[in-house]
């Protein structure tokens, strides 16, 4: 049962071949056996999971069918899960038990999914490796000496190691696509507003979006179909019906126009194996009937700068709420300001770094020179994407210039760490959707991801392109930690 995909398990649940309780017990045993090493979960909620599974079995027995009914899944530690410690990878939220569910968690629970626990993340989603989690560092299931990517590294590793049939993450600058690429799984980051952000602990509100992980494109699509949707509690969520994403997976991409942006293949430090695999994947799309079009996203070379100015500015504002009054630990000093400062000293190094940068670029005398310019440059980048999508249906590029790096390699060099995200951040700044799908392995056996980007709310086209590629290749049959390992 360990090696089943989400959709295979769902078929068996609906046929009555297996029970949700049995599937849940299998996953919990798997976590007990392997997560000591992989460290993908920060909190495992075994008791709640088994109760949810028993309830799902009752619904299944009554003949109910649902995309995730009875399916055990994991959720990122910054999606509020009522009554369960939700700590955003941060000491400043240690012990926080949300009094309500995030929209996406509500959606999962109503759909009858079984929540196995909370998966590890860099503090507040700020990082590319999970090394900035205050609690633990997750390992890459393909090679435990390498990072799983971040910030949703726990979610990606859990799926890659068969410790969940699907997981949720969040993607502010690539935090779903990057770990999906590093861990050899599928990670989907829908259009901003496609999924309500209610109850998703905020990092950068104009960029944050919940995304999904699966071993296959269909698995990730099934997860997205359940968590997507409008919600009046998030004024930026889009009021438009959620399509049947799984039904969109026909595998037919004849005539699909695939844009290849030249800027995404010239990065210094681009790994040769990554370039070769991604080019081969694009050739495969062409062989399947797609038309390959060379395009240009000229301002993508500025994307990382725009991203770090906007994201840190928004973060400095969002993280202003952590003062030890309403939640989280409190450190008492000589007066209110001193207490606030000492309490906020509980933030980890990268959160502090980003709060400091964001505070600076918003401060008097520097706002126009930094934040103001970044907002304008963002417009130019968005225009590049608008222009590109006049000529193509999807854009293909590497998810990341390199494969999973070793622990510690980029910890003390923020520029090197930030460059990890160079190919993912543009999408967050624009109104596009995107995903990473496995497209090969490097010389050391580490996975490589093909990034596909789609136009605003064109998730169906995007997912179908990835599905066509996936079904024509063997990568999704490779397993980092098969049953019995």
């Amino acid at each position, binding site marked *: 049962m360990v090696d089943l995909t989400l959709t295979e398990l769902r078929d068996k649940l609906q046929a009555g071949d297996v029970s949700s309780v049995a599937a849940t017990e299998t996953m919990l045993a798997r976590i007990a056996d392997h997560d000591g090493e992989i460290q993908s979960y920060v909190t495992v909620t075994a008791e709640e999971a088994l109760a949810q599974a028993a309830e799902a079995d009752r619904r299944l027995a009554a003949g109910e069918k649902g995309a995730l009914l009875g399916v055990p899944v994991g959720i990122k530690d910054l999606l509020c899960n009522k009554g369960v410690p939700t700590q955003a990878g941060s000491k400043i939220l240690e012990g926080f*038990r949300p*009094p*309500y569910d995030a929209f996406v968690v509500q959606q999962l629970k109503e759909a009858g999914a079984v929540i196995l626990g909370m998966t590890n993340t860099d503090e507040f989603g700020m990082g590319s490796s999970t090394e900035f989690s205050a609690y633990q560092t997750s390992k890459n299931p393909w090679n435990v000496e390498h990072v799983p990517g971040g910030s949703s590294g726990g979610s990606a590793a859990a799926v890659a190691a068969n410790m969940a049939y699907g997981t949720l993450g969040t993607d502010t600058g690539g935090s779903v696509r990057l770990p999906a690429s590093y861990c050899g799984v599928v990670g989907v980051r829908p259009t*901003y*507003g496609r999924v309500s952000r209610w109850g998703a602990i905020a990092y950068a509100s*104009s960029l944050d979006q919940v995304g999904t992980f699966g071993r296959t494109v269909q698995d990730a699509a099934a997860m997205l179909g359940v968590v997507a949707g409008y919600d*009046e509690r998030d*004024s*930026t969520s*889009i009021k438009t019906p959620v399509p049947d994403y799984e039904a969109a997976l026909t595998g037919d991409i004849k005539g699909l126009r695939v844009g290849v942006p030249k800027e995404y293949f010239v990065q210094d430090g681009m790994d040769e194996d990554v370039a070769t695999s991604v080019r081969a994947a694009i050739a495969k799309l062409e062989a399947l009937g797609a038309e390959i079009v060379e395009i240009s996203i000229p*301002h993508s070379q*500025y994307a*990382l*700068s*725009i991203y*770090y*100015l906007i994201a840190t500015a928004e973060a*400095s504002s969002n993280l*202003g709420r952590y*003062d030890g*009054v309403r*939640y989280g*630990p*409190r450190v*008492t*000093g000589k*007066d*209110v*300001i001193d*207490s*606030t*400062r*000492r309490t*906020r*000293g509980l933030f980890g*190094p990268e959160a*502090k*770094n980003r*709060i*400091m*940068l964001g*505070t*600076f670029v918003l*401060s008097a005398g520097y706002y126009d020179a*930094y934040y103001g*310019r*970044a*907002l*304008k*440059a*963002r*417009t*130019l980048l*968005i225009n590049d994407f608008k222009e590109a999508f006049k000529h193509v249906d999807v854009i293909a590029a590497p998810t990341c210039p390199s494969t999973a790096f070793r622990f510690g390699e980029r910890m003390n060099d*923020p*520029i090197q760490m*930030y460059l990890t995200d160079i190919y993912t951040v543009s999408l967050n*700044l*624009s*109104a596009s959707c995107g995903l990473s799908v496995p497209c090969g392995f490097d010389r050391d056996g580490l996975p490589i991801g093909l990034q596909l980007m789609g136009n605003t709310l064109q998730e169906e086209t995007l997912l179908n392109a990835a599905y066509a590629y996936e079904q024509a290749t063997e990568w999704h049959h490779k397993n980092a930690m098969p049953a019995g390992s």
Partner: protein
Amino acid sequence: MAELTIKDVEKIALLARLHLTAEELADYQGKLTAVLGYVAQLDELDLEGVPPTAHAVFQQNVMRPDVINSVLPNEEALANAQAKMDGQFAIQAVLDE
């Protein structure tokens, strides 16, 4: 801005309400200077007349009916607080004497 001084970093830390050790101040001085050096690439762009973008998926005047929905009971709203008094969050005294 070419390089931030320790004084600059201290000022930012105060604005951000962060308590930083001397070691951290020096560390952030280097890291922030490096990042500001990198983002200086935006100076190349001619942004005259370009409108700023705050949200990529533009929505305007999002409204919902002004009705009271379910609200958290007082006890639940206070459950995560370190200190409470008379059904409210308790903080350190702001005014002394």
